[in-house]
C-alpha cells in the first residue's frame, strides 16, 4: 500500500512541477518584439518589403515576371522600342505561367505593409513620434506603390486595408470583392498624401522620402486621368462599382492632382547636368551616359540598388553588343528599332519623318557608318549604340553585308519600297554567323561580309535591327565580368525627368480640357524644353509646336528602355492602333565594294515579326486560380 502512495506522490510531484511554461514562442523564429523594438530591426523589415516592391526593373520581363534573373524576352521588345531574337510579337504579362503570379506577389507585399502599420504602434514607446510617423508613412507609400502595380494591370482590385487572419474571420469576410478602378486610384492618392505629410525630407538611398511619395502620386494620377479620358472599356458589378474605367468627368481632377504632385518636387531635385555644357555635343553625350551611374545624381528620386554578389542582375551580359560578348554567350537581346531612332533629332529625314537614305532614287554613300549620324542628338547616341559608334573603347561594327554590284550611276534600292521580302542574293555577300569567311575586295584587301556585331542572317545573336542598346550598359565593365548575375548597377525607378514629363503631360491635357486657372500650355512648353535642352535636342520654338504627340514622343525618347513605355501605350489606349499587324523597321548598313563606301537600307524587320495588341489587354486577365478561389472576384472583359 505504501508503495502505491509513493508512486502517486511522485507522479503528482513530477506532473505538477515539470514543464511549467509550455506555451513559449519558438526560439528559431524572429518575434515581433525582436524586430519592432530597435531601429535596426525596422530597417531589416523595410529592406525586405522594398525588395518585394513590384517595380519593373532589370529583373522584370512580361514573359517571366518580377524578380527573375533570366531576361531574354526583354520588355522593350514588346513595346516596339526594340527587337529581340527571343520575342516575336506583342504580349500581355504572362498570366498563368507565372508562379507566384504578379497578383499574389502584390497582395503579399500589401499584407507585409499592413502588418507593419498595425504592429508598429504597439512598440511606439521605443521611438520618437516623428520616427513612428515617418515609418508609418513609408509603409503607406509601399502599399500605394503596390496598389498602383495592381490597378495599372487589372483595373479595380480588392482593397485590403487590414491584415486578414484565419481563423479569426469567416470565409465571407475574407472574400473581398473588387473595388471600382476610381476608388483604387483614390485610395492610392490618400496613402501617398499621408506618406507625403508624415515622412521626412530624406531617407536612406533606395528608400522613399516624402518627395518620392509625391513623385509616385504624379505618376499614378496621370494614369488615372488618362484612363478617364481615353478608356472605352466598361465593366460594372452588380453593386454599381465600375471595375474597369473611370468616368470621363474625373479626368480634370486627376490631371490636376498629377500636376500638383509633380510641382511639389520643384526645387528639391533637378535634371542631371554635372558635366553638361551648352552647345557641346560630346559633353552632353557624356553627361547623359553618366547620369545612369552617378550615385549622387540630383535627378535620382527613387532607386533600387544592387550589389554583387548578394543582389545582382545580368543586364550587361544579355545586352552587350555581340563583339563584346561575355563568357555566358549572351549578347544583343535589346536592339532598338528604326521607329525608335527616327523619333530623335539630328538625322537626315524625309518629309514624312522617316530616315533619309536615298537621293533621287539612289542610295546616299558614306565613308563611315557614323557619318549618317554626325549631327545626331546626344541623347540618341547615349541611348542607342549607332553602327560604328564607340563603346568601351572599340568601334561597334554593324554591317549587313557587302554589295558587289556595279555602282555606275548610283545604286538603286535593293528592294521596292515597303517590301517585306528577303534581300536578293545576287550582288550581296552576307554571313550567317560570327564565323565569317572574308571577302576579297576589288583592291585585293579582305573584309568580312558582316560586322563584328552583326548583322548575321542565321543565328541572330547580333544587332538584328542595325542598332544595339547603350542605356544602362556599364561603359567600363571589363568583358571578363560581363556575366549573368554579375551586374549590380542601380535601377533608377523614378527620375526627375519623368516627374517633369508627368507634369508637362498633365498640363497639356488640362489645357486641352479647357482649364485656364494657370497657363498650363506654357508650363508644358517649359518642362519639355528643359528636357530637350539637357538632351541636346532641338528646342521647341513656341507653345504652338506642342501637340499631344510631341509630349508623348518626348516621353518615349527620354524614358526609352526604362520599362515605362508599355504602360504609357496602354493608358493612352494607343497600343492597339500602334500594334496592328505591325512590323517594326530596321536600318541595314551595306558596304559597296566598288565605291568603298557605305549605304543604308531602311526596311521592315527581316524576321517579319508581327505585333498585334489585343484590345482586351488594356485590362489584363486576372489569374484563373484567383477567380476560382474567390466567389466574388469578377474576371475582366473578354477572358
Amino acid at each position, binding site marked *: 500500500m505504501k508503495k502505491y502512495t509513493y508512486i502517486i506522490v511522485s507522479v503528482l510531484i513530477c506532473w505538477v512541477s515539470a514543464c511549467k511554461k509550455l506555451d513559449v514562442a519558438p526560439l528559431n523564429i524572429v518575434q515581433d518584439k525582436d524586430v519592432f523594438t530597435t531601429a535596426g530591426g525596422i530597417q531589416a523589415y523595410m529592406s525586405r518589403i522594398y525588395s518585394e516592391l513590384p517595380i519593373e526593373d532589370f529583373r522584370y520581363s512580361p514573359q517571366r515576371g518580377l524578380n527573375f534573373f533570366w531576361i531574354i524576352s526583354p520588355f522593350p521588345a514588346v513595346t516596339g522600342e526594340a527587337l529581340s531574337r527571343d520575342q516575336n510579337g506583342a504580349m500581355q504579362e504572362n498570366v498563368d505561367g507565372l508562379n507566384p503570379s504578379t497578383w499574389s506577389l502584390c497582395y503579399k507585399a500589401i499584407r507585409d505593409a499592413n502588418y507593419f502599420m498595425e504592429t508598429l504602434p504597439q512598440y511606439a514607446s521605443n521611438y520618437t513620434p516623428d520616427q513612428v510617423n515617418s515609418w508609418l508613412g513609408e509603409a503607406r507609400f509601399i502599399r500605394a506603390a503596390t496598389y498602383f502595380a495592381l490597378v495599372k494591370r487589372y483595373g479595380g482590385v480588392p482593397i485590403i486595408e487590414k491584415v486578414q487572419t484565419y481563423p479569426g474571420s469567416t470565409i465571407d469576410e475574407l472574400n473581398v470583392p473588387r473595388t471600382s478602378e476610381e476608388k483604387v486610384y483614390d485610395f492610392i492618392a490618400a496613402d501617398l498624401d499621408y506618406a507625403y505629410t508624415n515622412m521626412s525630407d530624406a531617407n536612406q538611398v533606395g528608400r522613399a522620402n516624402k518627395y518620392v511619395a509625391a513623385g509616385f502620386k504624379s505618376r499614378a494620377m496621370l494614369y488615372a486621368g488618362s484612363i478617364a479620358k481615353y478608356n472605352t472599356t466598361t465593366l460594372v458589378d*452588380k453593386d454599381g462599382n465600375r471595375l474597369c474605367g473611370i468616368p470621363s468627368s474625373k479626368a480634370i481632377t486627376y490631371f490636376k492632382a498629377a500636376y500638383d504632385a509633380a510641382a511639389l518636387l520643384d526645387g528639391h531635385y533637378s535634371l542631371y547636368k554635372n558635366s553638361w555644357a551648352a552647345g557641346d555635343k560630346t559633353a552632353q553625350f557624356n553627361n547623359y551616359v553618366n547620369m545612369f551611374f552617378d550615385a549622387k545624381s540630383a535627378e535620382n528620386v527613387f532607386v533600387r540598388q544592387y550589389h554583387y554578389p548578394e543582389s545582382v542582375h545580368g543586364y550587361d551580359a544579355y545586352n552587350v553588343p555581340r563583339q563584346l560578348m561575355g563568357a555566358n554567350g549572351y549578347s544583343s537581346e535589346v536592339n532598338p528599332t528604326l521607329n525608335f531612332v527616327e523619333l530623335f533629332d539630328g538625322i537626315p529625314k524625309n518629309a514624312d519623318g522617316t530616315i533619309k537614305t536615298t537621293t533621287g532614287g539612289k542610295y546616299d554613300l558614306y565613308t563611315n557608318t557614323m557619318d549618317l549620324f554626325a549631327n545626331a542628338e546626344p541623347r540618341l547616341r547615349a541611348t542607342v549604340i549607332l553602327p560604328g559608334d564607340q563603346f568601351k573603347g572599340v568601334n561597334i561594327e554593324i554591317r549587313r553585308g557587302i554589295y558587289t554590284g556595279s555602282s555606275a550611276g548610283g545604286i538603286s534600292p535593293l528592294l521596292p519600297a515597303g517590301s*517585306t521580302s528577303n534581300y536578293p542574293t545576287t550582288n550581296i555577300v552576307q554571313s550567317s554567323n560570327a564565323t565569317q569567311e572574308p571577302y576579297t575586295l576589288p583592291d585585293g584587301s579582305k573584309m568580312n561580309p558582316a560586322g563584328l556585331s552583326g548583322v548575321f542572317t542565321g543565328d541572330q545573336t547580333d544587332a538584328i535591327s542595325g542598332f544595339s542598346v547603350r542605356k544602362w550598359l556599364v561603359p567600363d565593365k571589363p568583358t571578363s565580368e560581363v556575366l549573368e548575375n554579375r551586374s549590380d548597377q542601380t535601377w533608377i525607378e523614378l527620375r526627375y525627368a519623368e516627374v517633369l514629363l508627368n507634369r508637362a503631360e498633365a498640363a497639356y491635357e488640362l489645357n486641352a480640357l479647357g482649364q485656364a486657372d494657370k497657363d498650363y500650355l506654357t508650363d508644358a512648353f517649359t518642362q519639355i524644353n528643359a528636357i530637350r535642352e539637357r538632351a541636346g535636342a532641338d528646342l521647341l520654338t513656341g507653345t504652338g509646336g506642342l501637340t499631344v504627340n510631341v509630349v508623348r514622343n518626348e516621353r518615349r525618347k527620354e524614358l526609352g528602355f526604362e520599362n515605362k513605355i508599355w504602360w504609357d501605350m496602354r493608358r493612352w489606349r494607343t497600343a492597339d492602333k500602334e500594334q496592328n499587324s505591325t512590323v517594326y523597321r530596321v536600318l541595314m548598313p551595306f558596304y559597296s565594294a566598288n565605291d568603298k563606301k557605305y549605304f543604308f537600307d531602311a526596311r521592315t524587320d527581316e524576321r517579319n515579326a508581327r505585333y498585334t495588341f489585343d484590345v482586351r489587354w488594356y485590362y489584363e486577365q486576372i489569374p484563373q486560380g484567383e477567380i476560382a478561389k474567390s466567389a466574388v472576384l469578377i474576371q475582366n472583359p473578354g477572358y
Partner: protein
Amino acid sequence: MKKILYILAMGVLVGAGSSCKKIDNYDAPNVTLTGSVVDATTGAGIQTEQGSGTRIKLLEISYTANPTPFYISSMQDGTFTNTKLFAGTNVISAEGPFVPMVQTDDAGKTIVDESQTVQIKNTTTVTFKVHPLLRVEWVGTPTFNADGTITAQVKFTRGTDDPNFQQDISDVYLFVNATKYVGNNNYDNRYSQQITYDGSAGNAAAGTTITITTKGGPMPGKRDYFIRVGARTNYGLKYYNYTDVKTVAAP
C-alpha cells in the same frame, strides 16, 4: 523475415485494392446545347471569328446563385454547339460584335437583360436576336485582277439606332487566307489590306461602297483564296463585324 514482409505487402495491396468502394458513378455529360446568334432585323447569323469573336456565356444557377461563368465559342457563322454539358438550369447570354444583351447603368442596376433562363436537357436549342454594331455586306462579287490582286467591294451600315453604341468607325479590313477560317485571328498578313480612319473620319463612309484591293503584289495562282471583310467601331473590345466568307479562284 522475408515471409513477414510478403505478408505485409500482400496485406497493403489487398487493402489498397479493396478499399474505396465508392467509384464516381455520376453520368458523363451528355446534354447538347445548340443554337445561333442572329441579326434581329434581317434574321441572318452574326458573322464572327472563331475563338476570339462571339461567345456564349452560361451561368449554371441550379446549385448557386453566383456561379463561375462557362463560355462556349461560337462558329464563324454565328451558330454554336456543345454536346458535352450537364443538364441544369442556365442563364444564357451571348457576347460579341453586337449591342450587349445585358447592360447595366452606372449604378450597377441592370437596365437591359435579354439573357434567357433555360432548362438544358437532351438537346436544347437557343436563338439570340441581337443588333450588330455594324452590318457589312458585299457589293457585287470580288474579282481576281489581271495583276494578281483581289479587289472586293463592300458596304457597311450601322446595325443599331442606339447612340451609345455608335462609336467612331475605326477601320475596314480585307482578310485573305488559304483556308475558309478567315478573320482577324487568322489571316495571311502578306496580302490582307486594312483601311484605317482617324477620329470620326470613318463615319461618313457608312453606307457608301468601299473598294479594297489586296496588298503585297501578285498572289500565287492556281488555287482558291478565302476572303472576308471586317469592319469595327471603337466600342469596348473592338470586335469586328464581318461579311460571310467568299472564295476567289486564282487562275
